């Protein structure tokens, strides 16, 4: 789609890495476990790549491989977001129930 050259890709990669390092450093230590599952979920945006290949209207092996990738990434996507939400819901400041 977009015009593209390797240097542009590297530029974006470089900047995104700096952004990543900066934001992750700011994450509360309390939340390192949910952070791990959230970034797992985020990296399952690879599903976009899988859809692009699987949906290209080709036949044969490449499509089947890409469908495998759709499956694998969807798994990550769903389980990653759900478990992150589940874990985060546990963090409460004030005591909400009587034990």
């Amino acid at each position, binding site marked *: *789609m*977009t015009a593209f050259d390797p240097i542009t*890709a590297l530029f*974006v990669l470089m900047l*995104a*890495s700096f952004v*990543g390092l900066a*934001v992750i*450093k700011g*994450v*509360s*230590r309390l*939340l*390192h476990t*949910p952070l*791990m*599952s*959230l*970034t*797992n*979920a*985020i*990296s*399952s*945006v*690879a*599903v*976009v*790549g*899988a*859809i*692009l*290949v*699987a*949906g*290209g209207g080709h036949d044969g092996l*490449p*499509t089947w*491989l*890409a*469908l*495998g*990738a759709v*499956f*694998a990434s969807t*798994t*990550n*996507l*769903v*389980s*990653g*977001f*759900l*478990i992150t939400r589940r874990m*985060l819901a*546990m*963090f*409460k*400041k004030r005591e909400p129930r009587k*034990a």
Partner: protein
Amino acid sequence: MIFTAVGAAYLVSAILFILALRWMSTPETARRAVASAVVAMAIAVVATLARPDVVAYQWIAIAAVLGTAVGIPLSRVPLTAVPERTGLSQSFGGMAAALVGTAKYYLWLEEGGLTPFRTGVISLEVILGCLTCTGGLMAAAKLADWIPSKSITYPFQNIVNVSLLILALLLGVYLVFNPTASWAIPVIIALALAFGVALLMPIGGADMPTVISFLNAYAGISAVLMGIVLENLLLITAGALDGASGFILSVVMCKAMNRPMTNVLFGAFGSAPAGAAATGDTRTVQSATPGDAAMLMSQADRVVIVPGYGMAVAQAQHRARELYDQLTKRGVDVRFAVHPVAGRMPGHMNVLLAESDIPYDRLAEMEDINPDMPQVDVVLVIGANDVVNPAARTDTSSPIYGMPIIDADKARTVLCIKRSMNPGFSGIENELYYNANTLMLFGDAKAVMGEIVKQLSGEAAAA
């Protein structure tokens, strides 16, 4: 036009992903973080489906439904199984990258679109994806005890491992110069898959969390490579975020364990430190009963609870909550001191304690609580060992020397719950147990804690 719209959607999606990670900076904003990431993902997927070059939907839908069907149960695992879930997830991520790379290779082979640059990047993507795939699987299997978690070694192991990787890389280089030599692809895949297994073989189960964190970084990098292959800036950005997260968490773990980064970075070759395990010490320890412990704590002004891996194993976090309630009711000031590498993954204790509904403002970090330790009446150590081992401060010959620890030994009285005198993760003795102000409470953490709570509530009922 439509491509510009899709590009704009990807841009918005990338912004939301970044904001999501920024919002993980405090528990208050963290729920917004998930919402933002979900919206970002939805935008990305919808925009992709709307692209005119995506024409076949039904199989994608089926694969997505299957993925969801597997994903939902995977998200319901008990919290103690989170490390293995993460390993599995890394494995799936690597698999996806490898599959897309391979698929794209064959597509371009048909269409004549292969350039040296493209094959080079595809090779890297496939290698990294495959090794993450089997590596993550092995890590998960060892953590879940599906396979023996101990370190497996054999002669010339390192040479074999390195050769597998070098062979795969050489084939990748060969492909750069002969982009259409398609026979090399399956060989690369096989080599990389084997390398992932071989890499994890010598690593003991206890070292898995660090490995998993590195695999996280690898999975991120393979997503970046996929982005380069597919010329997709969103994938590059998201992959870089994932990679940075894996990298930083690994650094945090290594630092908190006082192990050099390089030690783990270069494949975590080598086994977990063997250490001088329980060397038939003749010194005696003082033990106490749950009743004594209940009495001591109920009369204290300030109690600090130090949870460790043993609390996770015993699932004793709910008992800890009950103890917290009982003591708080009596006006005792109770806090939890959480060491950055207590347990088996970063933030492990925080999640467990949050699960049992302990308000997170009662959790203190090591640096904040250590200065207060001399004023603490009772420290209760629940299944923690290395993170309270004073040898880290004093014994230069100890493998954990230099690792920052929670200064439990400086409190007036220390109570330690564990099942035996066995060492913890690092396999070394702990002087703390022999101190004059230390009392041992032997037994499973959940059972002992239950006893203590029963004493306290019985006492309360009697009063």
